[in-house]
């Protein structure tokens, strides 16, 4: 018989191995699912995970989709470590896109060298402003940030919808709910020739390194780590909970806002109703797979990006609905959470010999 037993200390090996176990379990489930759907699982595996990466353009797309996932994931991981549950990165991303994109529309076709840096700044500020609302409500009114950040996602998306249907709609856009295309100076430069990858991925990787330094080498990063691991110890040490909440939400809002402006000023090139296929939500999984560690998040973002590409590839190559991406993402997180059990617990074989079950003895019976 097997029994769960708490480990003397958490297993460092399992902490790294668990995402791999989860990915493997997801692939096995995928095999079963494809077989059940009457598709050849080997071919499906190829279409999902190999084909998207078999060209320079494909690699470029991988990096392109990694950018928003990595940016959002970095901020969220930082917050989750400090027990601050920002799950509204999607809304902060949208607000970043609105703020930065609005500025791009104001610049019009100007060739100003200021346009792009200011747009990025506005994107960051837009995301931060949107994340400041839950930070204020949590610190001032004790309001749960999970629900507030989520509600603000819907509000941000409706605001964007109003803008592209109303005041910012392109009059020559054949009635599509979208703005003017951004000018050349308002569109990000392509990083790799022959792909759509922009400089956004460079910003994201630099920020990942910065986040690593922040969490490893700064006092603020240490305070947040303690607040997450041992809230009572953090309070005893006099670390301000409110300051941690503000830092966590502002940083995650900033990176999500940057992700938003990088999307609209990059591959999209204008404001429109749909600017993200749920990157902000997928980033929750990214943060978790990356073990809430900035460098781990890079790998998490790459994997999640591949799932998006695989879903698109499966839609085109095997006429499967692209929603399969969401299915795999959810499964992956389930498997990961389950596998994480073995960081703190282990399975132990317990030998139960016959007749060793304690039985009520005669002495007890007499006493009763």
């Amino acid at each position, binding site marked *: 018989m097997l029994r769960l037993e708490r480990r003397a200390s958490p297993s460092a090996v399992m902490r790294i191995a668990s995402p791999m176990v989860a990915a493997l379990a997801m692939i096995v489930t995928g095999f079963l699912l494809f077989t059940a759907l009457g598709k050849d699982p080997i071919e499906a595996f190829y279409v999902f995970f190999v084909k998207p990466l078999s060209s320079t353009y494909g690699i470029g797309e991988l990096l392109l989709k990694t950018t928003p996932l990595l940016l959002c994931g970095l901020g969220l991981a930082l917050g989750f470590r400090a027990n601050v*549950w920002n*799950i509204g990165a999607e809304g902060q991303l949208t607000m970043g896109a609105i703020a930065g994109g609005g500025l791009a529309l104001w610049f019009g076709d100007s060739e100003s060298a200021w346009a792009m840096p200011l747009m990025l700044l506005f994107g960051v500020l837009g995301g931060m402003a949107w994340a400041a609302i839950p930070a204020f*409500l949590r610190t001032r*009114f*004790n*309001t*749960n940030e*999970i*629900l*507030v950040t*989520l*509600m*603000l996602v*819907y*509000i941000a998306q*409706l*605001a964007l*919808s*109003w803008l592209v*249907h*109303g005041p910012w709609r392109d009059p020559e856009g054949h009635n599509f709910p979208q703005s003017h295309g951004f000018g050349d100076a308002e569109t990000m430069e392509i990083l790799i020739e022959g792909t759509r990858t922009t400089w956004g991925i460079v910003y994201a990787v630099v920020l990942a390194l910065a986040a690593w330094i922040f969490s490893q080498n700064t006092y603020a990063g240490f305070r947040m780590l303690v607040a997450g691991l041992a809230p009572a110890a953090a309070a005893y040490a006099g670390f301000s909970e409110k300051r941690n909440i503000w830092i966590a939400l502002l940083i995650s809002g900033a990176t999500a806002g940057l992700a938003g402006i990088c999307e609209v000023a990059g591959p999209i090139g204008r404001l429109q109703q749909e600017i993200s296929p749920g990157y902000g*939500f*997928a980033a*929750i*999984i990214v943060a*978790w797979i990356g073990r809430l560690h900035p460098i781990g998040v890079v790998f998490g973002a790459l994997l999640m990006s591949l799932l998006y590409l695989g879903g698109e590839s499966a839609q085109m190559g095997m006429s499967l*609905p692209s*929603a*399969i*991406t*969401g*299915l*795999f*993402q*959810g*499964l992956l*997180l*389930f498997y990961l*959470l*389950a596998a*994480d*059990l073995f960081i703190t*617990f282990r399975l132990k074989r317990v030998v139960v010999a016959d007749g060793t079950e304690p039985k009520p003895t005669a002495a007890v019976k007499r006493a009763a």
Partner: protein
Amino acid sequence: MNPIVPMIASSVVAATPLIYAALGETITEKAGVLNLGIEGMMLVGAVAGFAATLATGSDLLGFTAAAAAGLALSLVFGFLTLSMQTNQVATGLALTLFGVGLSAFVGHDLAGVPLSALPPIDLPVLTQIPIVGPLLFHYDIMVYLSLVLFAAVQWFVSKSHAGLTMRAVGESPGVAHAIGKSVLTTRYLAVMFGGATAGIAGAYLSLVQTPMWVEGMSAGKGWIALALVVFGTWKPARVVLGAYLFGGVTQFQLFAQGFNLPIPTEFLSMLPYAATVVVLVIICRDPKTILLNQPASLGRSFHSTA
């Protein structure tokens, strides 16, 4: 005709899925488990109910399938959080993300297929009474059943022995365990109840309110249901009252159109979400309200060493 009566009537219909979902979550949370996966379970319930009714023509089978689907998902959540001790917040989020993906995948070919809505009941005399008739006696059966459910939950929580055990488990699982109550069983049952009702809530959207399957059709109602539990300070009666208030807020659009208010529809659609935030602020402003009412072990895993 007076526009107030249809507005109230449509508010009641809008509130009904919230009642199912929020009452279920109230029970789940009373047992000390925070399930953030309502949105996902609702969507899966919506697609399962729609598919079942489309295939069989029976609304009863549709709602049964939806309840079963929600229950099945909640069992996954229960297994992970209760048996595998995973973080409840993260697992709930995973459940929602999974449910969104699963429902979109399963419902891919069902999108846009029309289905006739569950008709309102027609009582011979009562329905004809002016004002009172359409206000009280002209809803579909699920509206009345939601009130039956409310009465049952209210009784269960405050009057029954099993309800007392459940509250004990939610307040202090260690003590409940020490006096021989099974924390695990109680929590599993509470989670399953929440799953089944969330499934029914979803099916109400796809079988009655809309009636069709649209990807992501719950549009945050699962999250609003979670907020309602806080708003109702974990008391069934207040949760239901809150649901009706929210139903009213979501139907404000009709009212605005009736009076030709010059507000863009997007802003009107923001109302329920903005109202949720406002309501949460009002309730949570005083930390004592939460401290006194929230089940003490909410969100914490329980691992018996004995």
